[in-house]
């Protein structure tokens, strides 16, 4: 799905520090021995992005979003029935990456059975079961975005539970 709605990226922030992993210090060769320090964190630091307000959502009509940055498209859906891991007062709001974790093709939402489907190789993922791959070729289930809903009903994405297709760090690093 092509994104048709801007997200609030004003508070987007990227990984601080920039060196990956506990070993780190790959660039420390110019420093005297013994001064290398690991500057990266054990996990990537996700931004907290406002995606929408609950009032913006219509049941079973996916909204295009981006998380954690503009190159990682996803959808935000109010399913209409509570699901495990669903956010919001009704426990029915979920968000997923729409890049197929098999080969990165853009998934399309089928509102009939609430699945995301790949036109390339026919994998499909169940939006009501945490993005479980109902059938397909991907070797992980669909990355789901962790959501937080604040007192104003604003929905924020704050994390991802699988590696997003096309990046070896969910938050891109320079």
């Amino acid at each position: 799905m092509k994104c048709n709605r801007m997200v609030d990226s004003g508070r987007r922030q990227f990984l601080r520090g920039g060196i990956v992993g506990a070993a780190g210090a790959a660039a420390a060769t110019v420093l005297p021995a013994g001064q290398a320090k690991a500057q990266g964190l054990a996990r990537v630091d996700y931004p907290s992005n406002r995606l929408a307000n609950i009032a913006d959502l219509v049941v079973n009509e996916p909204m295009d979003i981006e998380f954690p940055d503009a190159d990682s498209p996803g959808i935000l859906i109010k399913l209409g029935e509570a699901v495990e891991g669903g956010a919001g007062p009704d426990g029915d709001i979920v968000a997923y990456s729409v890049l197929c974790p098999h080969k990165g093709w853009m998934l399309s939402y089928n509102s009939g059975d609430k699945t995301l489907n790949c036109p390339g190789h026919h994998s499909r993922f169940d939006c009501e079961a945490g993005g479980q791959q109902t059938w397909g070729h991907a070797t992980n289930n669909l990355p789901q975005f962790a959501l937080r809903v604040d007192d104003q009903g604003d929905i924020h994405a704050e994390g991802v539970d699988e590696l997003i297709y096309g990046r070896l760090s969910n938050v891109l690093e320079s």
Partner: protein
Amino acid sequence: MAYKRHTDRLPIIPADAKEQNVTCHYCIVGCGYKAYSWPLNKQGGTAPSENKFGEDLSQQQFQDTDAWYSASMYNIVKQDGKDVHLVVKPDVDCVVNSGLGSIRGARMAENRPSKVTGTQQQRLTDPMVWRNGVWQPTSWDDAMDLVAQVTARVVTEGSEDDLVVSMFDHGGSAGGYENTWGTGKLYFDSMKVKNCRIHNRPAYNSEVHSTRDMGVGELNYAYEDYTLTDTIFMVGANSMETQTNLYLNHMVPGLQGGAKMVVVDPRRTLTVHSSEQFAGAENVLHLAINEGTDMALFNAILTHVVDHGWVDADFIANSTFQDGEAVAQDSAVPAGLGSLDYAMQTCRTSLDEAADICGVSSADIQKAAEWIAEPHDDGSRRKCVTCYEKGIIWGNDNYRTIGALVNIALATGNVGREGGGICRLGGHQEGYYRPNEGHVGRPAEYVDQFLIRGLGAVHHIWACDHYKTTLNAAEFKRVHKRRSDMVKDAIDAAAGGTREQVVDAIVGAINAGGLFVVDVDIIHSQIGQNAHVILPACESNEMNLTSMNGERRMRLSEKYMDPYGNSKPDCLIAAEMAQNMERVLRDMGDDAYADQFKGYDWETEEDAFMDGYNAGNPEVTYDRLRDMGNNGVQEPVVGFENGELVGTKRLYADGSFDRHGRDDKKALFCAAGWRGWQAAGKAREQAAHKFWINNVRANIFWQNQFLDQKNEFVQDRFPYPFIEMNPDDMVDLDLNPGDLIEIINDNGVTQGMAYPVSTAKPGQVAMVFGSPAGSQGNVVNPGVNELVLPDYKHCWGDIRKISNATAETAAISFKAKEVQF
């Protein structure tokens, strides 16, 4: 809630990482992968100069990129004694898969044993012997001495017929040319063991005797024929689910290029659905025949083709036998073979007759014949590639049914030509190189019944698990366990005795009806529960391994990690067993017999390759195969020119057929006479039960379920074996999705979880085959054909609820598996 790995980044492959060739070892297609490994304290960077891909990895990579890998493609393994990072990812330059990974192969790295990440801790590390009431780890010397002492006693006091051997014959995994040669030399050269069987069936036989007897080897095409053809004719196969990347990378381009597709299968498979998406429903014909009636369908198609003159007259005249009967039907040949005219006397079947038998319309059968053979408007011949697999191989009347299908390909000249071929699709890769097995005989011994009858004294098992992959499995398990328990009890009673006293106790138990069991495997299998000695093997990439895929493409899949613990390649285990046999026999004073076990001074798997495959194919060496990379060479290799091995794109391109060994090089037609249910007991069972219990495959763990029983991604999806059912049938039985059910008939009982499928016909269920958590073979009767080919596909039973869905089964997705836009 779906299983998630919570991986938010992966180590980047550094630019100087070691790169090696890998052929996926799980299925017949043999997709090319690359293994990258590098020291644990190093990592690549996002700058193009810092990573293997030369790409800026600080940017999002897009669709079909080579510069990405998933968490399942990563692990930490031992290489030359040191822990290293490992990434195994699809190879974009391999012509087989062009960078596509399957849900199986793209988990190869994750399914490696690792003491660092904790994956596959079920892998065996050390030999074990039954001692003091449990399996005790021990040294190779100790375990092998016990194996040789008992085996040598038995074959000298009795005969080699008392040694029963179950051994893989395939490529990939722990098979391959090295390992089939090692085991083959031991049992068919040093000994002449005839009571042996193959990993998935109860005898040592071909699954496709008839096509071979007709002169047509079963793997005769090139995968590119699917893109060059007018029609894909698929029978009893579901390639979208199984040979996934053959389907996606070769069949789909064919369909998108205008090819039509005919699918014969009682079940509406994912292949039918996806093909309709790719080709348009008007170009896909699904013949949902009654189970087991394929032969009548093929005979009607052949009759229609012949009667309308859509045959290739020149091909028939030049390449097929012309003079009536060539081979008469007898106990080793379940149908006569000869000329087309000869075969037609038996095969002739009208469209209406077939429609009655098969339960599909005569118009659809006619349409299939037209799509397969009717010449184009300009008079040119239609090209058709035919592929088949377990639906008829494990189906009714194997010999004649496959023969009837090959008849159509021969009559239309669709063998050895571009866009043609008549091939089985396959399961594992192939990798068979053994001394002549003629002493086994034809029909071969029905080994599982031989054991059930109380015969045999020692059972050597190599990477076979009858518990999951045999028919009449319930009875087999009962008897095998009882007989092996007799030996366990004898060992326990002899506790504290010397080796000689323990061997005496074992032989005493054998003479009383017991069975001494040696199990060589990579994990502690279910049949391994009955073993007295367990020997740990390694598999592909823990050793170098050569195999060929479904278009005879041979590759060297390179060793990138150490065997786990003290495990070893099967070929070297066989060599060690032979050396121990030689020593023990010499100690027994039988020098002549001991001398038969010479010739195993192999230190590496390459030594076994040179002793076997290379001796018969002197052009082919490890170095040359390594140079040929993941595209390898298509067998047979016919030369070495300009630094490259020269192969053979497709067999029989010259119109000469030799698989039957006939001097005239003429292909034979099969007099495939329809006779209803061929195997004993099928008709009665069908009449007595409500449900036909089809057995089927699932792409997620096809060919590697033994590893995936310890893979959480897979167990989360299918915590129990699925049994696909018609939703109305489920309502009738008061079943909800995920409820645990059992299937019952006179042969036994098995279990699984109810899985509603709207396209399932009422009264038909489809149970996944080979599951560790529910063996479909428990309910399959012992019926086989004249050549001991099992009819796994046809069994009937009743269904009973065991319990409501568990927390695990209730949580999985039960939505349609078919893509929907």
